[in-house]
């Protein structure tokens, strides 16, 4: 029964816990057993929290017995390790926070727990969410459950691997330039990044504040909708969270796409991705059409500047956001003869190479004499990219495009930073525009030189605040295409 239970969707698990058919404690025990058995080879979690999970499960059972109807009753949750959960080690995959215990809980995590989810552990990620493969974690290796020689994607790779390996039903991720959507695509999951500001960032350890957005990684669209419904909405602790009513997404799931115009981005021609991927995406677009959508040809002429723009804005913000890791108040401290030496030694020892690279790029981009040429121009480009989407959405209701340019690759395959940065070519423009976007499984492809077929993701993107429409459409596609 245990493994049956764990392979269920979060929606179904919650339903069974609510009905009293199983208890949250039973689900939690089964999950902890699964983690004990599987995580040695997967490496999804940096910290497993058996006691905390049991305590939360017991509380959920009590609430269920008390008559509360919890939308996520007993759902095992993997929390990306850049989100604070009071009393737990929260590392960001970095040596500088390796032993830091969060003194408070992130709003999004608190809302998931309030909805009945049970935190199982803190999931691995690229250091400070900077990366696309999870290989930049300083604290552990996470493997793709579909092929252990391959990466799970990143930066939310631990959350993705946990859900794909049934070590959790929902994974919380954060997406700055694709960090939810790309690992979801690599691990055959739905990965959903809501509109910027829809879910509070309070307690999410910042990488790039103007881009970071929390979202779920799940095995079904419905589960993403449930998680979104639990987390979305204004938070007085986050000045950038949006004070605007949230339409319930779980009730907007649909089975067809009739009446919808879906934009296919001319500038994202898929032939360059190879015959295999081209065929998968063309088939996906035809499936959308079969479901009743009208396909529309749209253009995002400035989207090609997305990666360049992103790699100025995100590092600029990160150079400032990560300044606080200085050894003075918390985290790693390496002493020196004076405070400056302490700063230098602490940061030299505490940050990995990719984090250092981005801090340097960002510091340079903000420096006197370069600010206008780099930071200000990047902001202008960002505005133009946003306008491209606005124009495109005058002709369509949703946009469909690839979630990534390849399937999960082998460890070490993208060793130069630039080829790694290009992994986010299709996801960065939506992040810069703050738009809601998701990745949904759309096929399997055996990578060149590989022997196992690996999952491929289709990206769907909606105008600002149209999460309900986006999830609804993704549900129709998922229902029609999932075998």
């Amino acid at each position: 029964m245990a493994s049956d239970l764990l392979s269920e969707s979060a929606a179904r698990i919650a339903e069974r816990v609510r009905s009293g058919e199983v208890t949250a404690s039973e689900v939690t025990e089964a999950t902890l057993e699964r983690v004990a058995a599987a995580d040695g080879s997967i490496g999804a979690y940096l910290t497993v929290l058996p006691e905390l999970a049991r305590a939360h499960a017991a509380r959920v059972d009590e609430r269920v017995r008390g008559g509360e109807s919890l939308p996520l009753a007993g759902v095992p949750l993997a929390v990306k390790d850049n989100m604070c959960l009071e009393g737990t080690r929260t590392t960001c995959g970095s040596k500088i926070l390796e032993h830091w215990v969060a003194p408070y809980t992130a709003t999004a995590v608190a809302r998931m727990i309030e909805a009945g989810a049970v935190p199982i552990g803190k999931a691995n990620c690229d250091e400070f969410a900077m990366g696309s493969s999870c290989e930049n974690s300083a604290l552990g290796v996470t493997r793709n459950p579909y092929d252990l020689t391959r990466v799970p994607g990143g930066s939310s790779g631990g959350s993705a691997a946990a859900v794909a390996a049934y070590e959790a039903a929902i994974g919380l991720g954060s997406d700055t330039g694709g960090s939810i959507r790309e690992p979801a695509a690599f691990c055959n999951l739905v990965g959903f990044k809501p509109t910027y500001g829809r879910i509070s960032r309070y307690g999410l350890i910042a990488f790039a504040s103007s881009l970071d957005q929390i979202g779920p990684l799940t095995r079904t669209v419905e589960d993403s909708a449930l998680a979104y419904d639990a987390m979305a909405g204004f938070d007085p602790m986050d000045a950038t969270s949006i004070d605007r009513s949230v339409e319930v997404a779980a009730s907007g799931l649909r089975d067809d796409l009739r009446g919808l115009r879906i934009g296919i981005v001319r500038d994202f021609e898929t032939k360059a991705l190879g015959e295999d991927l081209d065929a998968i995406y063309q088939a996906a677009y035809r499936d959308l059409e079969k479901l009743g959508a009208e396909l529309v040809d749209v253009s995002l002429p400035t989207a090609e500047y997305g990666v360049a723009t992103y790699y100025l804005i995100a590092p600029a913000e990160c150079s400032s956001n990560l300044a606080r890791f200085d050894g003075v108040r918390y985290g790693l401290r390496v002493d020196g003869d004076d405070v400056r030496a302490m700063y230098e030694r602490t940061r030299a020892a505490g940050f990995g190479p990719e984090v250092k690279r981005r801090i340097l790029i960002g510091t340079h981009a903000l420096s006197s004499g370069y600010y206008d040429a780099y930071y200000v121009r990047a902001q202008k480009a960002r505005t133009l990219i946003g306008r491209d989407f606005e124009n495109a959405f005058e002709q369509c209701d949703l946009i469909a495009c690839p979630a990534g340019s390849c399937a999960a690759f082998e460890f070490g395959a993208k060793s130069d930073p630039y080829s790694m940065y290009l992994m986010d070519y299709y996801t960065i423009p939506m992040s810069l525009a703050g738009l809601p976007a998701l990745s949904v499984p759309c096929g399997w492809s055996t990578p060149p030189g590989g022997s196992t077929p690996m999952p491929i993701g289709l990206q769907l993107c909606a105008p600002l605040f149209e999460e309900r429409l986006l999830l609804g459409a993704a549900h129709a596609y998922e229902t029609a295409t999932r075998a």
Partner: protein
Amino acid sequence: MKTEYEAVIGIECHVELRTNTKMFCGCRNEFGGEPNTLVCPVCLGMPGALPVPNRRAIEHMVAAGLAFGSAIPAFSKFDRKNYFYPDMPKDYQISQYDMPLCEGGTVRYWLDDGTMRECRLTRIHLEEDTGKSTHAGSDDGRIAGSSYSLVDFNRAGVPLMECVSEPDLRTSQEAVGYLESLRRTLLALGVSDVKMEEGSLRCDANVSIRPVGASEFGTKTEIKNMNSFRSVERAIESEIARQTEIVSSGGRIVQETRGWDEVNGTTHSMRSKEEAHDYRYFPDPDLVPLEISSDDVERLRGTLPELPWQRFERYATEYGLATKQATQLIDNPSLGAYFDRVVAESSNPHQSSNFVLGDLSRLANETGVPVAESKVAPEHLAELVGLVESKRVNSKIAKELLGRMWDGAGSPAAIVEREGLAQTSDPAAIERFVDDAIAAHPEVAAEYRAGKTNVLGFLVGQIMKASRGKADPALVNELVRKKLC
């Protein structure tokens, strides 16, 4: 011929705003407290914590800007000022760079001789305060030689107003006059305690000199570590003297930051301009731009009290009070408010201020009860002013009445009525007292007639005594002289 120099001075002030909570979190904004007790994840810069602006602090800023006549732009924003410092939790300070809440403005102030002056403001912007470091393990508490440092973050995140003046000041007295007016205004607005000793007002002075008549500025130095208005005055004077000596002997001023040494009465070099930081300002992505609606501005404009320099002009120009008296009333808000109520009833500012700042303040000092909290109601004091003005009572009786009012006797007019204390100005009645006195002391009358006119006082005293103080002393004098000549 010896060149004469004039100083050019600009002042930068940091003022902690009085709010219930800190600038970006819910911690209480209070002075003192055990170290690191008024802190939370936000003001400690914990990973993942986010700032949320304090609306009250922004309103205080707008009120201050309106008081000084600054422009209040419809849009403003917060920027990050990036530099590493152990008492700054995030290693950046949330501040305002190119879009401050208040642009321009003018501080009007007055000097001891009552002259009104003006100093223009460049801008007023809002930022967060830092924590406080204490260096331990050395003899003098300085960082050099210390073996470790302690940081108290209670102050970290307290809303801080930075007010930058134009270089319009020419003397140390003007600098102090400016600061006093700034302090009085912020107090009147209720936006800050403005206490230099508690650090809620801190200021730096930019000082340069140039030949009198020159239009270009000389090289300036920035003076820090001044902890009272008196030390501002002394530091500026010392720095002007130092610069004048250097320039007069053919030397050049180095642009640098100099610290004021209270004990030695001199400034010393702290750091030169070459060590200046690149603060890498950029808009804080954790905060959305501030929109200040014209409705908000007008609402706040409507709450502005009469400003100190407006009161000064009313007291000094309209009422004709001396500078010292006017200043005294402005600097004691409850006394000033009391005075205004008395004047509103009595319409005699001069006599009212004599009572309020004279006998009444003396009684307050003697008893420790502030005037405004005493049993002397302003309308009763106004009544007394009226009794004196109309000569119904003389000053001696008035003083007596005030003493009884202080003890709770109530309306002086009622006492006068009840006890028949009204001054006697009836010549026939007074003449009787005069005749009686001359008749009772014929030898004194003789002495007066013999030219010893200083005995007049004795006779007048006898007459006042006989009238129980009610006789009009001027009339008494006049009649005695007439009778004896």
